[in-house]
């Protein structure tokens, strides 16, 4: 039992094939096999959101997805958020607003916020707070994060991306 399984995915726009054991989480494979270490293991039980990735357009905790379940799926990780030549507005605004301190939760927050803006490019503060409730930060007190996301939502690029995602 537990032979390794071949899994085919698209990660950040590239075809990625890997072998994994059925018991391995997507997070484990992303980090240890594919060396995409941006997604973090915080709680490993779905509470903290540090491992968030976008799976076929849906925000998930990659610690609560088996890697074998991702066969045939499109995955966006924090490594796929920036543009070729510059940071994504969310990343830029996190820096400008000092929306991070230790940084462990940051990839999860940015991926989560990206998923929000893809489907709601003009959220209210309440909507941002509600959406990010599944991402825990123990340093910032959240306020700067919320302001960074709201500020990023004002950028024209975010509106255009949401338009493209909706197709």
């Amino acid at each position: 039992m537990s032979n390794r399984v071949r899994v085919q995915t698209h990660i950040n726009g590239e075809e990625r094939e890997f072998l994994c054991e059925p018991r391995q989480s997507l997070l484990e494979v992303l980090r240890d096999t594919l060396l995409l270490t941006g997604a973090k293991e915080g709680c490993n039980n779905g509470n903290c959101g540090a491992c968030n990735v976008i799976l076929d357009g849906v925000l998930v905790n990659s610690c609560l997805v088996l890697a074998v379940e991702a066969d045939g799926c499109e995955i966006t990780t924090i490594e796929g958020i920036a543009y070729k030549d510059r940071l994504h507005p969310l990343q830029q605004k996190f820096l400008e607003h000092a929306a991070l301190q230790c940084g462990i939760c940051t990839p999860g927050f940015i991926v989560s916020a990206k998923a929000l803006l893809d489907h709601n490019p003009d959220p209210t503060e309440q909507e941002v707070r509600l959406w990010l409730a599944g991402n825990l930060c123990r340093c910032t007190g959240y306020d700067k994060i919320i302001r960074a996301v709201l500020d990023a939502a004002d950028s024209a690029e975010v509106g255009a991306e949401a338009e493209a995602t909706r197709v």
Partner: protein
Amino acid sequence: MQAFDYVRAKDVDEVVSILARHGDQARVLSGGTDLLVALREGRRQAQVVVDIKGLAETKAMSYSPTSGLSLGAAVPCYRIYGDEAVAAAYPGLIDAAHLIGGVQIQGRASLGGNLCNASPAADSIPALIAHLAICTVAGPDGRRDVPVEDFCVAPGRTVLQPGEFLVSIRLPAPQPGFGAAYLRFIPRNEMDIAVVGAGVSVLLDESRRVIRSACVALGAVAPRPLFVPAAGEALEGRTISDEAIDEAVRLAQEAATPITDMRGTAEFRKHLSAVLTRRALHMAIARAQAS
């Protein structure tokens, strides 16, 4: 995590045969938000994990104003509240689907899984009871229907027999004059387990002033989600009034047999049972009057 084999099942028969062969060493995987944590922490064992997300029936969701809602057991929460017709027809169910974890959890977690996990505090179960939902179970002897209020039998235990699994949940079409609501108390704004939850529904007559029937269910006040028929019956045929609601609230509170644990004392839960039943009834009545 412990080692296991993974099967992405293609149809109901395949699931049943794997479950029949492996007994309690086979586990059904839907969204995985409970199962994977339990396997990782060693609270559950499995030699085989059967993924039911690939089955036509378990991933299907269909609604019509005449036949109601058929909800595949593996349909994740976000698809339920993301469907405009379903969200408009079942706001009381959406109350619960919106509360289960954060968006990351709602992207995977299904109401079928919430039901099979059989937590006394499960958010969706009082709401499903209030909607008179019926579960369709498949097993070695074919299919059977189970009223949702009978599905859970004890903490973490359901009526499912060896070889059986939950295929889908049916909710009747909401009639004119029907309204439902689910409310829970938690000490923070989001992302917590109910201290108490209340799912209620009412069906009003044409005047929208008289209650034809009502249904009250509570979460986290008993070893399983608690259906309180007496509370609903107390409202039958009554004109909407504080007195009628008071009586239903009193009966719901009396039926609650909570324990004291880290989330709250038995006394506090008793208090909450009354507060939430009352508020949920007012909400359900307001929705019914707007219907």
